[in-house]
């Protein structure tokens, strides 16, 4: 039976169900409830919660524990998640799995506590030094957050790569009905982990690293793209939106269709790998693709433009509705499309 759960509590409980044995983190709004919940829940289950002195220390605790194969996670937001980037690069350099949660808040530096998607480019491009990618899930409901978290450790261990849940302040703070999957546990030895015996850790030495990274990225891009399309097959205008803006964009599709404007929606569930394949369904008659995002100057729009170039014939214009530190309202999205039709709104790419 479904019960009302707050997003941050639900993601924490889902991690428990998925077999997370260790959490290390540092409080920061709007994700603090993740750690708070786990500080009481984990000891009940005989698992380990550790309040670290800062976000960097937390990520290296995860680094050490997952080196030994323990299902471990950390979470943060805003400047706190920035501090973890060094450690994420080390996780990737060593091919260590891990699960990371970023409940995004708006802006650079201290920013604000407003809900936003302004970490998109950093989180989908690696974020630290060197060439690597993190698998990034972007849920748009609390149930989906739970479902994605439930698989996150399995995917991280399959590819020996960090998996991130890219949430948003409002998605972490709001409540929705949720049903949880049963508890599961990964019992088998991963084979490469540190156990004191100095067995092979699957370490790739320097000359082989670029090729190995490329092969991993290609495999993930081929197998792990996830998305949901809504009324795309006959659309003249296709929105691309993930997370909370995808919910108002979907409402806008319905409203525009009532007005006789054929709109559709591509909702990336993985933002890396970006779901290029979702664009296959766009008809050749399409008039424009519109990125709808809670950013200031446009971030998702860059991936939308790349996907449009690769997947659509002709030079289809790519527009962007950037709502800054709030979720774009359905009405704003409809008005924006009317502005495209009147020639008032110009394409970004």
């Amino acid at each position: 039976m479904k019960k009302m759960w707050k997003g941050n509590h639900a993601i924490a409980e889902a991690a428990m169900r998925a077999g997370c044995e260790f959490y290390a983190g540092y409080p920061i709004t709007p994700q603090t409830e993740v750690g708070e919940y786990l500080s009481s829940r984990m000891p009940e289950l005989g698992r380990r919660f550790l309040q670290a002195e800062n976000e960097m220390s937390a990520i290296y605790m995860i680094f050490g524990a997952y080196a030994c194969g323990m299902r471990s996670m950390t979470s943060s937001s805003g400047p706190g998640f920035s501090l973890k980037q060094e450690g994420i690069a080390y996780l990737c350099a060593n091919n260590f799995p891990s699960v990371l949660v970023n409940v995004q808040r708006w802006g650079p530096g201290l920013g604000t506590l407003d809900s936003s998607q302004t970490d998109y480019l950093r989180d989908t491009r690696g974020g630290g030094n060197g060439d690597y990618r993190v698998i990034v899930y972007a849920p748009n409901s609390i149930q989906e957050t739970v479902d994605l978290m439930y698989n996150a450790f399995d995917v991280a261990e399959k590819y020996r790569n960090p998996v991130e849940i890219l949430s948003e302040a409002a998605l972490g703070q709001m409540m929705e009905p949720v049903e949880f999957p049963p508890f599961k546990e990964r019992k088998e030895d991963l084979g490469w982990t540190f156990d004191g015996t100095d067995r092979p850790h699957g370490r790739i030495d320097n000359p082989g690293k670029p090729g190995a990274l490329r092969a991993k990225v290609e495999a993930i891009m081929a197998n792990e793209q996830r998305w949901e399309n809504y009324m795309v097959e006959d659309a003249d205008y296709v929105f691309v939106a993930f997370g909370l803006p995808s919910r108002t964009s979907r409402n806008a599709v319905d409203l525009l269709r009532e007005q006789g404007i054929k709109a559709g929606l591509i909702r990336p569930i993985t933002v890396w790998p970006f779901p290029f394949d979702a664009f296959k369904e766009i008809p050749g008659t399409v008039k424009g693709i519109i990125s709808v995002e809670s950013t200031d100057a446009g971030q998702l729009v860059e991936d939308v433009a790349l996907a449009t170039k690769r997947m659509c014939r002709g030079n289809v214009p790519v527009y962007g509705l950037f709502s800054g530190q709030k979720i774009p309202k359905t009405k704003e999205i409809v008005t924006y499309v009317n502005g495209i039709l009147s020639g008032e709104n110009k394409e970004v790419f």
Partner: protein
Amino acid sequence: MAVVKTTPTMVSIPNHFCPGCGHGILNRLIAEVIQEKGYEKKTILTLGVGCSCNMNGSWNGDKIQTAHGRAASTATGVKVARPDLLSIAYQGDGDAYVIGLAETLNAAYRSEPITVFVINNNNFAMTGGQMSWTTMPGQVTTTSAHGRDTSLTGMPIRVPEIAATFPDVAYVARGSVHSAKEINRLKGYVRNAIEAQLNGEGYALVEVLCQCPTNWGMSVEKSIQWMEKEVVPYYELGELKGRRK
């Protein structure tokens, strides 16, 4: 009866430290104690960044190379995942006391059940001899070219003295590798620091004063003399916090 000494397996590969460097001595002492305890296949060494990185090629046992300054946090994670194993952080003073001061002191403060060894050679050796928080007053390094001016940069830091004040810390000592006598004493500190973890007593830190002839620009003999005259009087040797009986 003749005493036969063999090389401990964990230091059986030739190391890559400079001639005259003291790191190798500490490597060997740690290896000897691990072997004594039968933990050769039950130890994970977390290596800091600096000259400790050299041990990637010579430490014949399980080891994780972590980021600069983060060894205490990494070793903490290792111990969470594998409380049955010996989790050791091996770092230099630049790693543990400068960039990683927060991680070092916070791990000590919480008394994480890990063992931390810190080589203090009064400079950043791996990058070619820059000033460290442990650089002595007036000491010339590549970033204190006129001699360390402590009125601008502070007096040399004494982290073990701070760690020893934390109520839950199990064991803190400072040893040195500049003489046979001190090496023998150091072996006892290393043993205590490892036993403290094996007995579940809590956090243990051993700082080891160490000559760095290459970056000090001195012969080994001069280095030892300088340590005796300048370093040892400031960095008092001995146990700063003994194990609870």
